[in-house]
C-alpha cells in the first residue's frame, strides 16, 4: 500500500485534497467568527457560471482564464446583491439567496447547453470534483520525487493549490493582528484607524481565490465543508484564535487524508472493488469530526450556558 502504486495513484490526490482543505479552512476560521459562514456556500455556487463562461470564451481549462472568470462572476454577484439590496430595500441574506441560486441555475443551463464533452467540465464534476483522477502518471516510486522529469509530470492542480495555500498562509501571518482585531471588535479596530471594510473585503476575496483553486480540483462539496467544518470543530476546542487556527489545520488535514483513504480503501474492506466519491467521503469525515467536537470538545458551550 505504501509502494510505487501508492505514489502513482494516491499521493497526489491526498496532497491536493489536504492542501485544498487547508486553503479553505484558514479563511473559514475568520468567516465563522464573523458570522459569514455561508459566504463559502455562496461563493462556491457563484463560481460555476464564471468558470463556464471563461471556458466558452477561451475554449480551455487553463487556470488563469478560470480564475479570471470566477473572479468576474464573484464581482457580478457582489454588484447584483448590492443593487438588489439598495434598489429593492431587501435584507442582505435574502438578496444573497436570490443571486447565488439564480447565478448557479444560469451556470448549469449554460453548461448543459454548451459542448463540453471534450473536456472534464460538467455539473457532476463541479459538485463532486475529480480528486481520484488526479494521478501522477510519471511516478515509478518514492524516488520519483527527486527525479526532475517525473516531477514535471505532476498534475498541474498540485502546484496551483500549493501556491494558493502558501499565499493564504503568508497573507494570514502578515495581516494577523489587523485581521484578528477587526474580526473580534470591528468598532475598536476602526478607532485604531484600521481599514475594517477593506479587511472584510480582502477576506472575502481570499476566500474566493481559495474556493476557485479548490473547486477546480475537488468540487464544491469539499469547498463548503472545509470552509466550515474544521474551523467550527476547532472553535469548540479552544478559547484562543491562534490555537483555533492550528486545530482547524489539523482537522482539515485529518479529514482529507482519512476521507481519501476511506473512500479508496474502505469499500475493499467490505468486499466491494469499487471506490466511492473521495470528495463526499472527505466532507463526511469532516462532519464526523465536527459531531465528535459538538459532543465532547472542552469549549463546546457558550459562556454561561449551564451544563447538561
Amino acid at each position, binding site marked *: 500500500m505504501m509502494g510505487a502504486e501508492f505514489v502513482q495513484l494516491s499521493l497526489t490526490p491526498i496532497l491536493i485534497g489536504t492542501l485544498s482543505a487547508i486553503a479553505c479552512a484558514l479563511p473559514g476560521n475568520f468567516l*465563522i467568527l464573523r*458570522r*459569514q*459562514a*455561508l459566504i463559502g*456556500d455562496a461563493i462556491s455556487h457563484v463560481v460555476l457560471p464564471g468558470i463556464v463562461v471563461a471556458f466558452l470564451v477561451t475554449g480551455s481549462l487553463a487556470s488563469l482564464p478560470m480564475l479570471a472568470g470566477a473572479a468576474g462572476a464573484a464581482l457580478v454577484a457582489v454588484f447584483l446583491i448590492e443593487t*438588489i439590496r439598495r*434598489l*429593492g*430595500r*431587501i435584507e442582505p*441574506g*435574502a*438578496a444573497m*439567496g*436570490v443571486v447565488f*441560486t*439564480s447565478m*448557479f*441555475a*444560469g451556470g*448549469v*443551463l449554460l453548461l*448543459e*447547453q454548451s459542448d463540453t464533452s471534450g473536456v472534464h467540465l460538467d*455539473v*457532476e464534476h463541479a*459538485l*463532486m470534483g475529480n480528486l481520484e483522477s488526479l494521478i501522477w502518471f510519471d511516478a515509478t516510486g518514492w524516488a520519483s520525487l527527486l527525479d526532475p522529469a517525473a516531477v514535471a509530470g505532476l498534475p498541474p492542480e498540485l502546484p496551483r493549490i500549493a501556491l494558493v495555500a502558501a499565499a493564504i498562509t503568508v497573507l494570514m501571518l502578515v495581516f494577523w493582528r489587523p485581521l484578528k482585531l477587526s474580526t473580534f471588535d470591528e468598532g475598536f479596530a476602526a478607532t485604531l484607524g484600521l481599514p475594517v471594510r477593506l479587511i472584510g473585503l480582502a477576506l472575502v476575496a481570499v476566500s474566493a481565490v481559495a474556493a476557485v483553486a479548490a473547486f477546480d480540483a475537488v468540487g464544491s*462539496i469539499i469547498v*463548503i*465543508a472545509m*470552509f*466550515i*467544518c474544521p474551523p*467550527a470543530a476547532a*472553535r*469548540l476546542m479552544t478559547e484562543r484564535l491562534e490555537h483555533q487556527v492550528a486545530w482547524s489545520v489539523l482537522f482539515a488535514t485529518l479529514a482529507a487524508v482519512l476521507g481519501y483513504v476511506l*473512500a479508496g480503501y474502505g*469499500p475493499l474492506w467490505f468486499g*466491494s472493488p*469499487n*471506490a*466511492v*466519491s473521495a*470528495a*463526499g*467521503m*472527505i*466532507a*463526511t469525515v*469532516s*462532519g464526523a469530526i*465536527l459531531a465528535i467536537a*459538538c459532543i465532547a470538545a472542552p*469549549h*463546546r*458551550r*457558550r*459562556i454561561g450556558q449551564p451544563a447538561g
Partner: protein
Amino acid sequence: MSTSLSVLADALLLQGGYNAALVAIGAALLGIAAGAGGTFLFLRKRALVSDAIAHATLPGVGLAFLAMVAFGLDGRSLIGLIAGSALSAAAGLFAVEWITRRTRLAEDTAIGAVLSVFFGFGIVLLTVIQTQSQGRQAGLEGFLLGSTAGMLFQDAVVIAVGGVLAIAALVALRRPMTMVAFDPGFAAATGVNTGRVDMAMMMLVLAVTVTGLKIVGLVLIVALLIIPAVAARLWSERTDRVILAAGAIGGVSGYLGAAISAAAPGLPTGPIIVLVSFALFLGSLLFAPQRGVLAAAIRHRSFQLRLHRRQGLLSLARSEPIFDPLTLRVLQREGLIRTDRVATEDGRAAAARALRDERRFEIAREIHRDDPFAHRYDGLTPIEDVMTPDEIAEIDRLVNRPLSVGAPA
C-alpha cells in the same frame, strides 16, 4: 426550432399529452406552496435553513433506494424516496437546531456544516449505488437538479397531491404563522405556542422540499422558497397580499418552467424554473408600484421638477436671474416665463404666491420648532395641504408687512 416552439406551446396549453400536462400542473401547485410557504420563512428570517433541509435530503434518497432494493422492491418508487428524504431532512433540521442550541456555534455555521456534510455523505451513497448493477439506471442524479423527462404518471400524481396538501396546510395555519412571523412575543402572550408553530412551519417547508425534489432538484429548491417571497415583498406591505403574490409568482414559475422544460428535454428542470422565477423577480424589482425602480425614478423626477419650479419662482419673485436650464424649461413649459426669461402675468402671480408661502413656512417653522412634524414644512408642499385655514390666517397676521414683487426688498 419551430418544432420545439410548438412543443412549448402545446405544453403551455396542456396539449402536450396527459403526462406533460399533469407535470406542469404539479409543478404549478408545488410552486404555489413553495412561494407562499417560503414567505413565512422569509418573514421569520430563516430562509437559509431551508437550504440545509434541501441538501440534507440526499442521504435519505440514497438510503431509501438501497433499502428498497434490499427488500426486493423497485428502488425508484417516488413515494419511498420521498419518505426517505423526509427522514434525513428532518435529521438535518434537528442537527441544525441542536448545534445552534447546545453549542456555541452560530446558526449560519450550523446550516453550512449540515448542508455540506449531509450532501457529501449523500454523494458517497450515490457512488455506492452507481457501482451496483441495479443502480446504473436509477437516475437518482435527477434529484440533484430536477428532471421531468420521462416522469412516470404516478410520480406526477404524487407531486400534484403533495402540492395540494401543502397548500391546504398553509391555508389552515396561515393565521398563527403570520402572528409568529411578525411578533413572536405578542403571539406567545395571546396563547399561541410559538415553538410548535415554528416547528409546523419548518415541517411545511420540509414537505414542500421533498415533494419538489424530483422536479426542481435539491440544489436549487431553496430558490423556489426564497425568490417568490422576495419578489412578492416588493409588491405590497400587507402580509396576506404578499403571501398571495408569492404563491402566484411561484405557481407561474413552476408552470412555465415545467412547460419550457418539456420543450427542451435534455435540460434539467430545476435551473429553468429558477431562472423563470428570477425573471419574475427582476420584473417586480423594476415595475412594482411602491418599491420598484421605475416608481422610484418617477418619484425622484417629480420631486426634482417641483423643486426646480419652486426655486425658479422664488428667483423670479426676488428678481434674481435664472441660469439653470431645467428650471427655465419647467417655467417655460407652464407659461410662467417668456422665451426671453421675463416673467409673464401668471408667472408674477405664481412667484408672489411662492414668496408669500415661503414667508409663511418660515414663520410656521419658527412656531413649531420643537414639533416632531416640523419637517412637513418643507417649503415644497402647498401650505394649504399641511396647515388648516385658521393656522394660515394666524400666520398671515404675523406677516405684517406687505410683500412686493419685482422691487428690491
